[in-house]
């Protein structure tokens, strides 16, 4: 196609009236949409339809109702709690760390190496991460033994258990807070010097600058990233399975055992379980999208 015809097409697209000549340009995105349909939408659709079918294939709401039984509700509740706790704690820790690395006047190499470490750590998840925490805080882990022999603190007698809620949360934190650092650092650097100077010229204290200028600007990205962290932990399976051996009642682990063999003795309920996860994720991603829109308003240069 010649260059003149491509500019014609482009200017035609801007006109309010739809182009009269049929364009074949959409053919270029057919492979992408075909792929997304085959391997993303259809598999999700199968689970969606299955959630509303009984064993004979008739329409039913019994599977959805089955989600509201104590054992399944508690699985959702634990998963949501772990995700929320690690999202907030990891988010705050990551934020303070990013702030320290970028804004508080530490040498430049701190920022560079912090971002490198964060990139590595946020990708170091799954089975090896579980091994690392077993070697650290397991019954014979380095930190456990050090605390016991040097400081005479036996954390396992004190009620700590790596394979429970707190242990899993500490493990998730290893990939949660670096992700916060990676995402929030650009937002922190987007805080313009002029704003601080303007605030100071108007006589604002450090606290007032944060309360009335910086925090309102940062809040959407801060909350949005925390939602992202929430989803990150909510969908995690390998880390939890490798760490606890499936002993903790998370939704992902329940779905995993349902795939291996129908542990719920109800195929439709398994589908509904997956659908419930997608719904929680979709709600949180919608929240993330709205907040990202808000934060972008201030990030234009």
């Amino acid at each position, binding site marked *: 196609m010649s260059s003149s015809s491509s500019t014609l097409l482009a200017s035609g697209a801007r006109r309010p009236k739809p182009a009269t000549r049929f364009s074949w340009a959409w053919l*270029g995105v057919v492979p992408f949409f075909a792929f997304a349909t085959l391997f993303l939408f259809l598999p999700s659709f199968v689970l969606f339809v299955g959630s509303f079918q009984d064993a004979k294939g008739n329409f039913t709401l019994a599977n959805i109702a089955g989600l509201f039984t104590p054992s399944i509700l508690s699985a959702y509740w634990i998963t949501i709690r772990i995700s929320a706790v690690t999202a907030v704690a990891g988010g705050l820790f990551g934020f303070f760390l990013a702030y320290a690395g970028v804004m508080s006047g530490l040498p430049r190499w701190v920022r560079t190496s912090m971002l490198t470490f964060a990139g590595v750590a946020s990708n170091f998840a799954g089975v090896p991460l579980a091994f690392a925490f077993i070697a650290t805080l397991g019954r014979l882990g380095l930190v456990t033994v050090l605390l016991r022999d040097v400081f005479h603190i036996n954390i396992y007698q004190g009620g700590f258990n790596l394979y429970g809620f707190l242990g899993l949360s500490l493990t998730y934190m290893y990939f949660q807070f670096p992700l916060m650092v990676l995402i929030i650092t650009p937002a922190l650097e987007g805080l313009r010097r002029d704003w601080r100077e303007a605030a100071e010229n108007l006589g604002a204290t450090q606290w007032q600058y944060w309360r009335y200028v910086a925090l309102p600007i940062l809040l959407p990205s801060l909350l949005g990233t925390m939602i992202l962290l929430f989803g990150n932990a909510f969908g995690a399976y390998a880390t939890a399975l490798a760490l606890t051996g499936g002993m903790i009642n998370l939704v992902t682990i329940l779905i995993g055992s349902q795939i291996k063999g129908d542990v719920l003795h109800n195929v439709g309920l398994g589908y509904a379980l997956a659908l419930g996860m997608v719904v929680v994720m979709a709600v949180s991603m919608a929240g993330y999208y709205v907040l990202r829109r808000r934060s972008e308003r201030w990030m234009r240069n």
Partner: protein
Amino acid sequence: MPPERRAWEPDLLKCRSHSWTRFYGPDKTMRIRKLNIWGWVWVTAGVLYFFVPLIATFEFSLRAKKGTLSLLAYQRVLEDPQFWRTFGFSVSMGVVTILASLILIAPTAYWIRLRLPRLRPVVEFITLMPFVVPAIVLVFGLIRLYSGKPFALTNTVVGTDMLLVAGYMVLALPYMYRAVDTGLAAIDVRTLTEAAQSLGAGWGTILFRVVFPNLRAALLSGAFLTFAMVIGEFTIASFLVGMNAFGPYMSQVGQNKAYESSSLAIISFALTWALMGLIQFFNRGAPEQGQMGGAR
């Protein structure tokens, strides 16, 4: 001199001196020093959180021989034929995933920018969908859809591997698309295309000799990120190919061999580090882009 100006000048002076003392006065230096202490505190906490588990794992991996530090666990792992077989399998799956993703996504992102900008929000939305559908749900759907008739992909080895690659491509979609799109944003796609066209280039030449070379850093960082994700991936692999892949192999070692599993964790950490290092190396000077992996 007009009187208004006289009234205005002292104000400015006051304003200036005000910010001057704020910047260089004793008050400001004290604040910076205080902040610095807190800065170091947080950085130290971050360093500890990052390194203590690594040191613990490394120390543990050296204790395979009683009473002495040795590399015995590493030796055992590296002598295990299963290690090399599963590692090779996951490397080849990673390479196929990267190539297939690039072939699918790079031309699509380019075409969207050039011809179909109105579709951009739709495509972006689709690339974010894997965040909504966790890997465990995705593999559930894939198995239910493709294990029975009419597709029955899981009945053959090739079919199962294809399904695995497709699953990985879906997981990689957000990172790959973002990497490519950020790369495309940095170059003038339209001008480059038209210049190539006016010199008589066909679409193949435009894509492979004009556009893609300009995206090299972006494509490479997307590729390495995908590779880092695929190599130790457990969720999808364990349900589709089981012990053939590296992730499930590591998990199985962890169930009965403590020292070997620690050495595997160190090996895979070194691998992640190397891949992230490569991304940074190829991104020098380019606008910073994501090194964010997903949940596993």
